[in-house]
């Protein structure tokens, strides 16, 4: 009788062959880059559609001259580069986006790329203060609460985080603006409660793992437990959470910068929304999406590089 070969998919994985799977990371990165290109293309087409079909698009002031006859007006329209066929228009728009030219804002009557360059400096300064500040508070608090295991302290921190989470971001911004605290503090207050709850739960779960409990039973000190057994297990999720916090921070920029009158991209986005400046708004959303997407990709790649994969 002839023995049938076991298909590759049904073979058992070889044990103890643990290696850093660079091929997997590369595949994952390629997938993410493809998704990023898709986002840019979709965003570009959406921007272009909004611009192309906005009222008054392609109208030349000379067309309002009553002395011109219909043939002259038609000639002016034909000479306008934007009035070419729709596919050409989209292609040109996407080409401009890839060159970093996003068109002109209707509200501000200035190039969008110039506005974004100006405003992003302010926002990045706020984020540079808020993100490390928030994470320092979150990690200190979460590590302290889970390591000390004091019920009263845990309840107090949970109630405080719950109260802050139940407060609208705009209300926190209003408080910061009225008391002269600035955007950084408002952002920290908005980010900390949500991040704290996630981080605390991640650390708590890591503390409850069997190997940690076994190590604790053998009398290993809390600091050693944290450094050698809890934090390495929790690290991938914490890194993932850091990427999420960037997206959260960008979202919080809108109410905070608008209410605190800080001229950043959050304020720009809301001014664009109130003025129905859709090309500017969609471009801003696209740029922020690309930034957060890149942060998520970096976090995922880092996690995959850190995690050994069995072959």
């Amino acid at each position, binding site marked *: 009788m002839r023995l049938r070969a076991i298909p590759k998919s049904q073979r058992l994985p070889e044990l103890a062959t643990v290696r850093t799977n660079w091929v997997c990371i590369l595949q994952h990165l390629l997938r993410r880059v493809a998704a990023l290109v898709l986002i840019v293309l979709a965003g570009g087409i959406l921007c272009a559609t909004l611009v192309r079909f906005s009222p008054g698009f392609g109208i030349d002031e000379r067309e309002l001259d009553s002395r011109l006859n219909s043939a002259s007006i038609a000639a002016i329209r034909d000479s306008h580069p934007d009035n070419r066929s729709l596919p050409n228009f989209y292609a040109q728009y996407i080409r401009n986006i890839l060159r970093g030219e996003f068109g002109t804002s209707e509200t501000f009557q200035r190039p969008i790329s110039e506005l974004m360059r100006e405003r992003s400096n302010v926002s990045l300064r706020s984020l540079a203060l808020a993100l490390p500040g928030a994470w320092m508070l979150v990690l200190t608090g979460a590590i302290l609460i889970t390591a000390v295991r004091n019920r009263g302290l845990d309840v107090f921190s949970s109630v405080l985080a719950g109260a802050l989470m*139940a407060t*609208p971001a705009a209300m926190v911004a209003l408080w910061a603006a009225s008391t002269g605290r600035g955007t950084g503090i408002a952002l920290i207050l908005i980010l900390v409660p949500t991040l704290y709850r996630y981080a605390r*739960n991640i650390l708590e779960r890591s503390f409850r793992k069997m190997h940690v409990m076994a190590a604790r039973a053998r009398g290993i000190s809390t600091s050693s437990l944290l450094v050698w057994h809890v934090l390495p297990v929790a690290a991938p999720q914490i890194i993932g959470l850091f990427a999420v916090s960037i997206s959260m921070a960008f979202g919080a920029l809108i109410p905070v910068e608008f209410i605190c009158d800080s001229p950043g991209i959050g304020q720009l986005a809301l001014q664009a929304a109130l003025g129905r400046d859709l090309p500017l708004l969609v471009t801003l959303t696209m740029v922020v999406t690309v930034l*957060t997407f890149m942060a998520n990709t970096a976090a995922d790649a880092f996690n995959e590089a850190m995690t050994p994969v069995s072959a």
Partner: protein
Amino acid sequence: MKVDRKIAWFVILGLVTVCMCAQLIAPANYAKQFREAPNASPSKQFLLGTDDLGRDRFSRLLYGGRVSLLLAPAAALLSTCLAAGLGTVAGYSGGMLARILMGTVDLFLSLPWFFLLITVRATLPLDVSPMTSVTVTFALLGFLGWAASARVVYAGVRALRSSDFITTARSCGCVPWRTLAVHIMPNLKPILWAQFLVSIPAFILAEANLTMLGLGVAEPLPSWGSLLKELENYDNLSAQPWRLAPLVLLMLVVWGFQALLGHDEVMA
């Protein structure tokens, strides 16, 4: 049932009952102006005083609560239904359709929520009647808030699909729609209920933020967001602490919904 969940149920049901009976309890209509008494302090006639336009704050608080507590669950129901539909189809069908649907979900999830919200809100008319504005605001929340829930539902359906009882049902000749309706959907109830409860406080807060920024519910219709707008004049707050009543109620409700699920379920 844990004590905090019991308290949360009591608080939410109590507030919903009071706000739904606003027409019976409120001393005045939300838009009625007492022009002789603008900015009045609390009294027997005006329990929480009046605002700049002489409108009774207590009445506006009750009517505002009715808007938030009625429409946020409606929006949550809409988003949960969308999530259930898309998540179930993707999870059960698998293959290319699932990849396309989940790719869309991932794309949606990578968009910053508040940027997306104001972008879509800005594409709709801003100068509309109060009733239209409130409908548009909550419909928008419902239509845009489904992506995270869809991913959870998808994972739930995938897990159920590979379970033994579904395999048995399929091997017995159970057609796909019957498998979905009779075997999968009833088992998804706890997941859908959790997603519904998670969405409500998120939508209440999103409405408050949108309205405070001028993109939500339009005057004179009150919502908790529009009542919080009154706190923009922060200086007099220590002298008039009763103006914080909408914030206290909003925080109570959001805390209540969070407590209903418990820490671990919310963060899972």
